[in-house]
């Protein structure tokens, strides 16, 4: 990366080493009443809108949701896919950019990876909300038992459990490992209980050459490991649909479609989170025009791929010309009760991002916040439309039905965002949300140049 680009990384000029330490650690240690208020609100929303209806549903039965004989899957499953999708950009992007040595990643990757982690956790929660008998959900794991009963390895849901757990483990290790030197920095800058906690968290990091070396290669190793994992996870999630015989779901294009959609919504999610960090955590100095510009370009490319795959989907249905497939598509985009959601999704995810061809829009943070949220609304409805417009009408016309989410489902959907926010708010007070040591790495050549000038 040229030094010109390096300079663009920081809108207000490069900070000094001491300033990096101070800014990032301050964000951890100084907690305003606004933070507590936000945390309190989001935690109570999570409790009221997510946990409370969930407990009600556990007691009553899944009948509390709006699903029925025709639509056995509903918003829980579509939300599960949405959250898995949202998790896809963080770790994947961070790993890809690490391998390609794009230095601009260094100030944003920590919080992007945290987003991965927490949206994966939210997605896992939705699996538990979805199943009928939560108390036996551990049977999906290969737990040794006297009956010698094992999970069914032909089931795409089984692949799901494996893939998601692997991805969750790998991303947790990845983010934790990358944070070790920063935990040490926090330890060195603090006293008392905090110092002791971070001394444990950083595994006694001393900063010797050997430690840096080990961290370097193991980090790269994990980056290489995580990339195929991330691609496989959403392919496997798409097989939940594609391996069925349901018209509108039984499509070979689903794996690339879902992976692309996942990275797309994930990148939009990163933009939203970056805006929050700049606005409320005071990281405006580290996350600047260069970052938003690059992320927006990525969004634009992904939106074009996404549009292309959507056209492919319609084309293959038209070209195959089987009555089931034709009717399923027609029901989805025109005749069904959710036709307007399909058009909304096309407008939000295919047309709105075309604005990003303009550099002025790309570098406007507030506008990008709106666009990124609009894209994610579109992606949320995409998943809903896929589920809600295919399942109620499969093959036998006599049992055609409809599906509409119940209040419990809507409330849990809203609550899931609060769950995510709560987890993320806790994260920013435990982890240094901007990587201290890696931002300093980008500073070093700059300072040398300044000294010689």
């Amino acid at each position, binding site marked *: 990366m040229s030094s010109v680009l390096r300079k663009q990384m920081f809108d207000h000029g490069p900070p000094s080493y001491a300033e990096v330490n101070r800014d990032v650690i301050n964000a951890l240690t100084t907690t305003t009443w606004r933070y507590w208020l936000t945390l309190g609100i989001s935690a109570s929303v999570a409790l009221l809108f997510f946990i409370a209806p969930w407990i009600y549903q556990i007691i*009553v*039965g*899944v*009948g509390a949701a*709006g*699903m*029925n*004989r*025709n639509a*056995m*899957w509903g918003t829980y499953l579509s939300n599960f896919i949405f959250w898995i999708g949202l998790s896809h950009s963080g770790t994947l992007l961070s790993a890809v950019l690490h391998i390609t040595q794009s230095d601009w990643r260094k100030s944003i990757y920590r919080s992007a990876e945290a987003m991965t982690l927490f949206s994966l956790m939210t997605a896992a929660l939705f699996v538990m909300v*979805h*199943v*009928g*008998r*939560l108390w*036996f*959900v551990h*049977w*999906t794991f290969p737990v040794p038992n006297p009956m010698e*009963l*094992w*999970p*069914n390895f*032909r*089931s*795409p*849901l*089984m692949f*799901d*459990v494996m893939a998601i757990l692997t991805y969750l483990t790998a991303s947790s290790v990845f983010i934790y490992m990358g944070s070790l030197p920063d935990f040490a920095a926090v330890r060195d800058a603090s006293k008392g209980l905090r110092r002791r906690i971070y001394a444990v968290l950083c595994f006694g990091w001393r900063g010797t050459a050997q430690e840096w070396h080990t961290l370097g290669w193991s980090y790269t190793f994990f980056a290489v490991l995580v990339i195929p994992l991330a691609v496989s996870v959403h392919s496997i999630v798409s097989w*939940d649909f594609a*391996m*069925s*015989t*349901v018209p509108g779901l039984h499509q070979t294009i689903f794996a690339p479609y879902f992976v692309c959609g996942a990275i797309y919504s994930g990148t939009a999610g990163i933009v939203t989170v970056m805006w929050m960090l700049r606005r409320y955590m005071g990281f405006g100095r580290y996350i600047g025009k260069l970052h938003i510009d690059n992320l927006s370009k990525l969004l634009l490319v992904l939106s074009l791929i996404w549009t292309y795959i959507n056209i492919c989907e319609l084309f293959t249905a038209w070209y195959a010309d089987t*009555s089931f497939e034709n009717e399923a598509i027609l029901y989805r985009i025109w005749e069904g009760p959710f036709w307007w959601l399909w058009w909304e999704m096309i407008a939000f995810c295919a047309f709105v991002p075309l604005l990003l061809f303009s550099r002025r829009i790309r570098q406007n943070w507030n506008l990008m916040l709106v666009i990124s949220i609009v894209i994610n609304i579109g992606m949320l409805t995409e998943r809903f439309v896929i589920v809600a417009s295919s*399942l109620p009408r*499969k*093959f*036998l*016309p*006599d*049992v*055609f*039905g*409809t599906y509409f989410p119940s209040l419990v489902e809507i409330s849990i959907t809203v609550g899931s965002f609060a769950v995510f926010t709560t987890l993320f708010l806790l994260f920013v007070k435990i982890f240094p949300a901007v990587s201290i040591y890696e931002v300093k790495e980008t500073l070093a050549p700059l300072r040398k140049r300044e000294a010689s000038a």
Partner: protein
Amino acid sequence: MSKITDTLRQYRADGYFAEFDYHWTMAIDLDQCTGCGACVVACQAENNLPIVGEKRMRQGREMKWLRVERYWEGDYPDARLSFIPILCQQCDKAPCEIACPVFATYHNQDGLNAQVYNRCIGTRTCAVYCPYEVRFFNWFTYTWDEPLEQQLNPDVTVREKGVMEKCTFCVQRINRAKDLARDEGRRVADGEVQPACAQSCPTDAIVFGDRNDTDSAVSRKMRDPRAYEVLKELNTAPSVVYLKNAREPLHAADGGGHHDGANAQAAEPRAAAAEPRMVEAESAVT
């Protein structure tokens, strides 16, 4: 690893289930079906199916392992009605069986698509994968009002909330007959087992038996030229065979390729299989 793949290959091969003692099959003669619904009631009584009530029925949550679908042709007064009882087709290549992550649904050696209620965790994937929509989910724990719980069948489990259930071909009756036959050291005789629906059918439209026995009543029905399988094009290899209701087309003049009645349709199994879709659908559940 090769051991696993070999087993799977063997499992999928055609005729795999022929090695076993029985291959239970049902034949339903649509020509004899009057749509009376006696089979539906019998199933409800035999298998402890809950009465969900009007409200939940409207929400599309009725529990009916066996339903009589109605399809209308033409406009009133020049209209005609046909019936087709749809129940679990006990597919030999069942889409639902690959779906379950915990093996709650599997294929047993009698060719039955078995559902283990204890093992079910309620992901509902099997029901989504089922093209016939004959799997039913316990959205709530259903109860029976005061005297009604007295008539629950002691041979059949009462299911709790969060569990998937479906037609078992009255497996409790099959097992009782098999036990009896084993004690007497013989095979189960043809006609010895009758599921509740077959037993209650006033016109004997439903015939049940062992397909491995080539002389059984059901095998003879299967060889009928009117025989077809619903949604055969999905390659699910169902164990329920329907005998087509061979009638003159409603409007013989514009009947196109169907002028030849039964023989034409027997020669065209694909066209016959898609029958429910060829007629105009009227969404109504009997």
